[in-house]
């Protein structure tokens, strides 16, 4: 077998967390020298071998050290211990933006970034149209990039990185930003890369996408490698292990909340048949979404609603009590509302629930909790092959038996 493209040997990386927010010379002199800080190990003795010509994934919870490892490979951070060897020309697309200068135009940034990545002016001129075309930014290329949306930013960065024709491409969580068309084109580019025998390393906390995109995956947890191997196996383990620490988010921990407050949602829970709270239902399970509310005064005809989305923000499903013809004349005080789901027809993955109470015309919000409950679905029955929803269908044929 050929030499690996990237070898990571016993790499550890330590960050210092300073106690003072403002580190100034004045404060340091007054303190008489050393700054006070705590040490924090973001990576601990990580070893990996990434063979040439494959697409390699790094999965793990937020904060597990994926980005740190990628930055060490990209030589942006220097490990405190261990060695990293890479072969060939490398391009990195780290979280948002790849070092664009906000005041300069897209065109100037392409040339600047390209020269940082090692292209001469002549090579860049030759590839310029292709770069801009792939990003789909022909009309905006002479505007300052500070006017770009985050999607445009990422598209341009990705386009530069990919068109400098690197041997190794490092990508951190950026693909979630682009729209579906761009994501598809990126995936095609990855496929081209693979065919050309080049190596791609992708980082994501959204495990499901990695299952299909990657040949091999390593799973990082608290800065250490838990597992490395075929992507299906590792991603299954990662999903099943069910991020233990993840419990139902209390209502006041929702990602954002707004509303006038005549009715407040006090908790949003996922419970099983016996009323016990669960965080890891399986496909096909009977589950109940349970809302507890409190109305400070009599509120006529309130409408309760629930919505589900995936981690990358795709809106999967929504349902509210008005469409179901289940609206009380009035509520007052505390109470609960349940939505019984006889069969949870979601495939494995992580989902976010949002909940709301609005008035009957749906124009006035009493309370809205965005992404207030996150849960992971594990393998169950039916077990179907991919995507978010399970249809529970049956294969059959009039012409053969199987």
């Amino acid at each position, binding site marked *: 077998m050929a030499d690996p493209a990237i070898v990571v040997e016993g790499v550890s990386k330590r*960050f210092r967390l300073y106690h003072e927010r*403002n*580190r*100034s*010379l*004045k404060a*340091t002199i007054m303190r008489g020298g050393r700054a006070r800080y705590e040490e924090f190990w973001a990576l601990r003795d990580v070893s990996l071998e990434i063979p040439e010509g494959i697409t390699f994934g790094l999965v793990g919870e937020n904060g597990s050290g994926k980005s740190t490892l990628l*930055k060490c490979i*990209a*030589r*942006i*951070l*220097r490990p405190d211990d261990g060695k990293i060897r890479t072969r060939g020309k*490398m391009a*990195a697309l*780290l979280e948002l*933006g*790849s*070092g*664009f*200068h906000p*005041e*300069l135009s897209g065109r*100037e940034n392409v*040339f*600047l*970034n390209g*020269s*940082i*990545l*090692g292209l*001469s*002016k002549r090579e860049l001129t030759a590839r310029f149209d292709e770069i801009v075309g792939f990003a789909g930014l022909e009309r905006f290329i002479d505007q300052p990039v500070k006017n770009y949306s985050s999607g445009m930013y990422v598209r341009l960065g990705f386009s530069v990185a990919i068109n400098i024709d690197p041997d190794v491409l490092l990508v951190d969580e950026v693909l979630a930003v682009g729209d579906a068309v761009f994501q598809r084109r990126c995936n095609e580019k990855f496929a081209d890369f693979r065919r050309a025998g080049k190596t791609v390393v992708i980082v994501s906390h959204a495990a499901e996408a990695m299952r299909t995109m990657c040949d091999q995956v390593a799973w990082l947890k608290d800065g250490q490698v838990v597992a490395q191997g075929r992507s299906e196996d590792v991603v299954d383990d990662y999903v099943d292990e069910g991020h233990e620490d993840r419990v139902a988010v209390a209502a006041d921990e929702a990602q954002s909340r707004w509303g006038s407050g005549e009715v407040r949602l006090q908790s949003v829970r996922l419970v099983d048949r016996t009323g016990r709270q669960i965080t890891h239902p399986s496909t096909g399970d009977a589950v109940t979404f349970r809302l507890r509310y409190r109305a400070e005064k009599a509120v006529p005809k309130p409408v309760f609603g629930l919505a589900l989305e995936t981690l990358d923000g795709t809106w999967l499903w929504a349902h509210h009590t008005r469409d179901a013809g289940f609206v009380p004349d009035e509520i007052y005080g505390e109470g609960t509302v349940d939505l019984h789901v006889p069969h949870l027809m979601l495939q494995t993955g992580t989902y976010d629930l949002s909940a709301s109470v609005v008035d009957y015309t749906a124009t006035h919000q009493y309370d809205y909790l965005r992404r207030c409950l996150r849960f992971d679905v594990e393998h169950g029955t039916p077990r179907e092959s991919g995507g978010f929803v399970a249809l529970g269908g049956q294969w059959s044929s009039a012409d053969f038996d199987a």
Partner: protein
Amino acid sequence: MSSVAELAKSRELFVNLTLRELRGKYKRSLLGWTWSLLNPLATMVIFTVVFRFFLKVEPDPGNPSGLHVFAIFLLCGLLPFNFLSNGITGSMGALIGNSNLIQKVFFPREILVAASIASWLVSFWIELGVLALILVLAGNFVLPWLLPALGLVLIQTMFVIGLGLLLSVLNVYFRDVQHFVGIILQIWFYATPIVYPIRVVAAALEKYPAIFTLYKLNPMVRFVEAYRDCLYDLRFPPLLDTSYLFGVSAATLALGVLVFTRLEPKLAEEL
């Protein structure tokens, strides 16, 4: 990758970054490049009015040139000092202002400092060109003396790069370094014979020769004197002075490179 290829790659990047600095500096201003000249000229006018006409500062006539114009005397010191001050201030912004690049892409970080200083060096050259023109118009046939003057620019560039590397990286670790440097530059300006001839200091410190020796240890004192020798007086600066300047500049550069390479690996996380 071979180091030659690495170097060629860095050269291209260096040129690109320098051009970016220059463009950024002059792009959106109505007068474009002339700004680069208006600034020192405005300072020249103000200082000439205040120091020459209000305070009656009297420069010596050029020896042997015989030139006797305060404004030109002033410019010969002001332009090199501006290069120092702009170069240092620019360097201190070079790392912090490009944190987005440093945190996203790998490349030799010292290029940022070098490019910032190079852009100020280009401004300095243009200003010196205009000064040469003024000198010729004022009757100083300065052309042959531009060569030793360029030698001085080279030595001073070493000095500025050394300080720039040192202070730029310190400024990442301690954000108030730039405030201190701002104050120090003001003191430094008046501790250098720019708006007054050195003769005045010598006279004032006649009874304290030790302090005068100390005063002359300031490399900018000798830089300004040496530039004046070449451009105003039309004579070679004393060899002792130029050797001193070369020694100090080389040492400063070495210190800057040393400190920078020590602190550079952690730049991305300290920014």
